């Protein structure tokens, strides 16, 4: 449902993504693996058009995204959860969720605040608290919940496990598996291979802004040299 090919992205003059291409199929959880600075975040931002690729094509359900402003990309059903969470710290949890709310979409699971509170019970207790009162893990939950309020067809998660206590990471893995069970495909950017393989069907490894490996985890296990070259263990 999401296809990237030959994508080149820049930060002014710095060439970051180099002919990057891969795809995500319906119902899949794909993990985008790579070291710090490999270009994972830039890839997700390029998909959202927060960074405008200079060349290449990115399409979602057959529609090209490259000429669209970010809000139109989101409206097409791409839900973006940024790396630094970027919750609205002066707004309450309920208000944060309200910002993410979008009308229901045909054939897509419709999230409600109650369902999200079942998924993230911590948020429910603190729903009148401001964003800045939350812990890192709770902010991550809120950021995901906020994006789910937009009833996305595909979720882009940027390093959700980064800087979060191990217990919470486990919860997070369960949550992603639940989302997958609801039929929501996920593109998950990760450095943490262990976390990725719990939830993901496929690994796409990037380094220096290009794809170095695209396949299953089993095949990857058979090629330890790839893992050792492109991922820090």
């Amino acid at each position: 449902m999401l296809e990237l090919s030959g994508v080149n992205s820049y930060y002014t003059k710095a060439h970051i993504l180099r002919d990057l291409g891969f795809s995500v199929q319906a119902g899949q959880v794909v993990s985008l693996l790579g070291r710090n600075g490999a270009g994972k975040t830039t890839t997700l931002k390029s998909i959202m058009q927060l960074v405008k690729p200079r060349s290449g094509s990115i399409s979602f359900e057959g529609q090209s995204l490259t000429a669209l402003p970010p809000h139109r990309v989101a409206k097409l059903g791409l839900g973006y959860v940024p790396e630094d969470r970027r919750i609205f710290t002066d707004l309450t949890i309920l208000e944060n969720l309200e910002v993410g709310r979008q009308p229901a979409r045909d054939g897509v699971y419709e999230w409600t605040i109650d369902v999200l509170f079942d998924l993230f019970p911590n948020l429910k207790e603190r729903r009148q608290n401001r964003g800045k009162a939350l812990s890192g893990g709770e902010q991550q939950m809120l950021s995901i919940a906020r994006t789910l309020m937009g009833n996305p067809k595909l979720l882009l998660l940027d390093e959700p496990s980064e800087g979060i206590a191990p217990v919470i990471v486990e919860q997070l893995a369960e949550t992603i598996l639940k989302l997958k069970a609801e039929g929501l495909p996920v593109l998950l950017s990760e450095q943490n291979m262990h976390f990725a393989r719990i939830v993901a069907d496929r690994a796409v490894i990037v380094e220096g802004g290009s794809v170095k490996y695209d396949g299953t985890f089993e095949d990857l296990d058979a090629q330890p040299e790839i893992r050792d070259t492109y991922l820090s263990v």
Partner: protein
Amino acid sequence: MGLIVAQILTGLANAAALFLVASGLSLIFGVTRIVNFAHGSFYMLGAFIGYSLMQVLPGAIGFWSSVLLAGLLVGVIGVIVELCVLRPVYKAPELFQLVATFGVILVIQDLALMIWGAEDVLGPRAPGLKGIVRIMGEPVPKYDLALIAITPFVLFGLWYLISRTRVGILVRAATQDREMVGALGVNQAWLFTGVFFLGAALAGLGGAVQLPKGGADLLMDFNILAAIFVVVVIGGMGSLPGAYIAAVLISVLNVFGVAYLPQSTLVLMFVVMAVVLTIRPYGLLGREEVVGEHGQVGEPEQPIKPAGVKARIAVALLLLVLALLPLFGSKFATILATDIIIFCLFAASLHFLIGLGGLVSFGHAAFFGGGAYAAALLVSYVNAPMELAFLLAPLCAGMAAVIIGWLCIRLTGVYFAMLTLALAQLLWSLVFQWDEFTGGDDGMVDIWPAEWLSSTTAYFYFTMIVGIGGILFLRHVAHSPFGYALRASRDSARQAEATGINTKRVQWMAFSFAGAMAGVAGALFVFSKGSVFPVELEIARSFDGLIVVFLGGVKTLAGGVVGAAFLELVKDYLTRLEYWRLALGILIIIVVILAPNGIVGSIRKLAQRSGLVKNHYE
């Protein structure tokens, strides 16, 4: 007792319009990060449009519908401004948009002049509320009571909109991180337009609602500008209740000031502001500003470097032509060139502060006018020879900058800008109201240069040497270790601190230095004109400086000088036209849209793209 109550009531009534206009400014700034200089113009339009409507709509219903309609119409005008002028420049570096809004001020001034004429308009009294009521024996206009009663409802309505509705939630979210709001599927462009509509409409309402008390005139745009900035800053950027409290505070104090200490009225609100900001740097109910946290656009800095050989030759040629000017040019041309050089030095000193220091001062005229007045006072009171006065003037301006800088440097971003504006305004009102010492409105005259500089040509060469020398000196400092430390403090205070730079002190020194250099320009100015008036210290003069710095290009060393020369030349030509403000305003807007990196920055970009000049990254 009765009198005091009556005075408080008058103050509360005056606060109504002030609050309306200020809350609009605060909203627009909060979401779009645009310091909308044209906000006073929206207020003025509200008054004039309201007046015209009241001429045709009769009775009490007509009156109040006129007020509402005026608000709506000004809201629509705000939308037009947003769509045509601001939308093309949202991506420009921060604060650049204020140049565009300055262009809008000029356009609206002339349009208002065309439509309503130069005569002040007396506001109609509100039908049904014409009389007075006696409260504890004192007369209080009924209309005042109506205003006092209405304002809390407006406050409540706005508060409800902002804190309880989806639109309000989106507005607050966008205030913090507009890019993220966009990534969640909200069309920010629409949100910006909506906020502009609301903000402008509030200003228009403010203008219309004060008609029975104040009427309408062509000066009200600038007259209210300082006051609403003060209100917004005292209340705390983005806080509506804060703006209300501040509006009441300022208005009530003002009524008491007029009654008991008339010579204080101009200074009063700035004193209050300075006190509040010293105790609470982010206003009564404000929170710390985090500038450019997310969604910051604009390109990274190009490293500045000494001019290349070609550029040096070009500048040398230009200077040569300039030096020959008195030989072949008219006396008029020589005087114009003198004016331009002086203005260029002033702009270069402000550019040093803004471009290198990242310190956007809204009150730089304080040091230009300060230097001019210092020289004038020395000549008039201690009979100082011109040479001595000329040397001491920059020192006095520098001293003023040391003091003002000490107060302001602790703040950042808009708060810094506002406090510099307030303190500059304080200096202005001091000069303006201290008749016996400074001549007040009549200025100081007969401040002529020494015998050997008395001819136009001699003074031109003097100006050229001092002025161009000053500009080169500023450039030299920019390339010195101090210049590097200043830029390091601007770009990354934390890293600069880590390398042992005391960033605040570096900035304070830069502020003082820039002030002294502006003082040099001021001294040159006063002896070239033979007189000085309070207008040289005014906000408008500070804005002139800001406009040319941004117009020329903040991120290029030559920006201030080129912008200043451009504006002075264009002004000299345009002011011969009847509606020169309109022409100048439109010109500024066009330049802003075509050259979002400033004149120099955009020319350089063009040259880079066409391969004429090498890019630093390649």
